[in-house]
């Protein structure tokens, strides 16, 4: 538990992470993801509760834990005017056990930029360096705090690849994110966090299954449409309308689609731009909290 004055940022959460998995903490900004991670990493102390990493007690074995974990912080900064290789080598000297700099550079795909100064790196490259710095001691457990926030889609996909390769190498990874695609694609287990609490925790497919509705039909209506009119359609379990887009969550997409097309054009509205999509973790989040991930 972590309190800041009146505000309890993280309250009574209990997480356990299996080895060699990617464990994701998904939640909107301000949910307490970073605070949780920082308590585990040892940057902050908790007001109550205990943390164990590979059987080592956080409070008792600080030094030992530092040797076996790798950390990428949300606001990553490194000393100016050093090159990628120099920075990786510098951080390497801090550890008893370290990887050769070239090995780290290869893992984060920065071979082309190894001798460039940090100020010359793009956002994606700087982020890969930040992850590289978390790997210099060949850690068993890696903590990544919003590793792809602020990156363009190409840089984000590139970073996903780097993280997936780490899992293949047998690392245990704990990451936070507020991108549901990221959580779905990367994570073996996702904990959904909101207002300092864990509201659900399971594999992404299982979390989506809890919705009971695996698909959603989305469309834009021209004319006037009362959303309540849609609730009676076959298979529909829930109707969510926002910003002119109507989403029909359904257990039977074919039947629902048939009925929708049949109704369209009869009661003064027409369904246009119809899409069928799989339900996502975002839908799970909305269902659990009544709010969207990014607002």
């Amino acid at each position, binding site marked *: 538990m972590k309190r800041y004055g009146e505000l309890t940022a993280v309250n009574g959460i209990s997480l356990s992470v299996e080895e060699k998995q990617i464990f994701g903490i998904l939640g909107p900004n301000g949910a307490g993801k970073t605070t949780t991670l920082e308590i585990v990493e040892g940057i902050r102390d908790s007001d109550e509760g205990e943390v164990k990493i590979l059987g080592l007690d956080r409070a008792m074995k600080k030094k030992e834990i530092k*040797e076996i974990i790798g950390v990428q912080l949300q606001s990553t900064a490194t*000393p*100016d005017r050093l090159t990628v290789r120099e920075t990786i080598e510098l951080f390497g000297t801090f550890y008893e056990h370290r990887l050769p700099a070239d090995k780290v550079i290869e893992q984060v795909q920065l071979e082309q930029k190894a001798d460039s100064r940090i100020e010359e790196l793009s956002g994606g490259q700087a982020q890969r360096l930040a992850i590289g710095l978390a790997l210099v001691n060949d850690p068993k457990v890696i903590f990544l705090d919003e590793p792809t926030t602020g990156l363009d889609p190409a840089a984000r996909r590139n970073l996903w690849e780097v993280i997936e390769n780490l899992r293949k190498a047998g690392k245990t990874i704990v990451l936070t994110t507020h991108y549901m695609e990221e959580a779905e694609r990367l994570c073996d287990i996702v904990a959904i966090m909101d207002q300092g609490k864990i509201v659900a925790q399971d594999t992404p497919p299982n979390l989506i299954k809890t919705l009971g509705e695996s698909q959603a039909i989305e469309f834009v209506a021209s004319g006037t449409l009362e959303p309540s009119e849609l609730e009676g359609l076959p298979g529909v379990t829930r109707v969510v309308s926002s910003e002119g887009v109507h989403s029909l969550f359904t257990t039977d997409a074919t039947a629902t689609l048939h009925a929708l097309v049949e109704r369209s054009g009869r009661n003064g509205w027409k369904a246009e731009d119809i899409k069928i999509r799989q339900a996502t973790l975002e839908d799970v989040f909305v269902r659990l909290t009544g709010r969207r991930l990014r607002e």
Partner: protein
Amino acid sequence: MNKWLENASAFAKADFKAFFRDRQAMFWTFFFPIMFMVLLGVVFGNAQVIDLKIGVIDEDGTGASLALADQIDGLENVKIVWYNGTEGGGTSFEARNASARTALEKGDLAVYMIIPAGYNRTLASHSANGTNATGPALLTVYYANDNTGNGRVALTILAQVIGQVNFAVLNEQPVVVANPQEVTVSRGRYIDYLVPGILAMNTMFSGIFSIAVVMTTMRQKGILRRLKVTPVAKSAILAALITTRMLIIFVSMGLILAVGVLAFGVDLQGNLVLLILLVVIGSLTFTTFGFAVSAYAKTVESAESIANTVAMPMMFLGDVFLPVANMPAFIQPVAAALPLSYLGTALRDVALEGKGLLEVLLPVGAVVLYGIIGFLIAMKLFRWE
């Protein structure tokens, strides 16, 4: 302990590299003090050896009057400025006299002298018959009675030259002559005063600015937080930072002393080891100021402006460019009590007068005392995040 040393030296190495890649920091640390020194040294450094200008209005216009002028012109640090009829396009005596007078009043001339027509004839008649029939030739000399004293100095020089002319004409040997011996003094010139002051100033700037900026940058950018999750000891980081700043100060100390000695002929009397020790003490003291500033400042910009607020008044009042004794009386007690003044005094006494540690114990003790105060403030305010 081995790991501590390894970490500290790796961090120091990285910090050193980063510093030498930072052109702006290089400029302020190395070139700024040298620039100050060279500018001030060239303008004021050798105040006494600026040429005395002696104006000559030659109404005689013969070989004898030319020979007199040549004899004056041949002296060291003296220059003749002609106010001649022919060169001035045949201007009247009154006009030439007026323009020489104006130059004298403006301070362009130290003195001016009128060689009367007939000077040659008077000389010749004396050489021929050895008697003083026509009376002496009168050389009228105008001098300015301003506070530079240059007029009187020039007058003395002229009297000497005229004395020599008299002996030559009368064909006599002087009975009493002065036997001048040059003694190199290490404290007389402005540049000699300036060099140890610049050294002290640079030690102050390096200590306050570089530590304040580097610590605030590392905190603001989250580098310190990042280091916190590695096993590196904080003390190793601090030791590395202090050490690199010290090495950088040594480099600039070498540059300042080299330029002072080679370009301006400053005569270093003191023990170099003692000088280095004083710089180390000064640098540690100002480093504590730097830590205090960085602890107080939230951003790099505010660290810079606080550091400026501390360092700039010290630069001007701290006995670097202007001796405390020459300052207005009301400011003197404040100026003399500044840590920079104490450091400058100690450096000056050692560098120029060759004093030993025991003789500069008072100013050194004051610097150390400031260091202890700075350390306590820094300890009280210091934070990693």
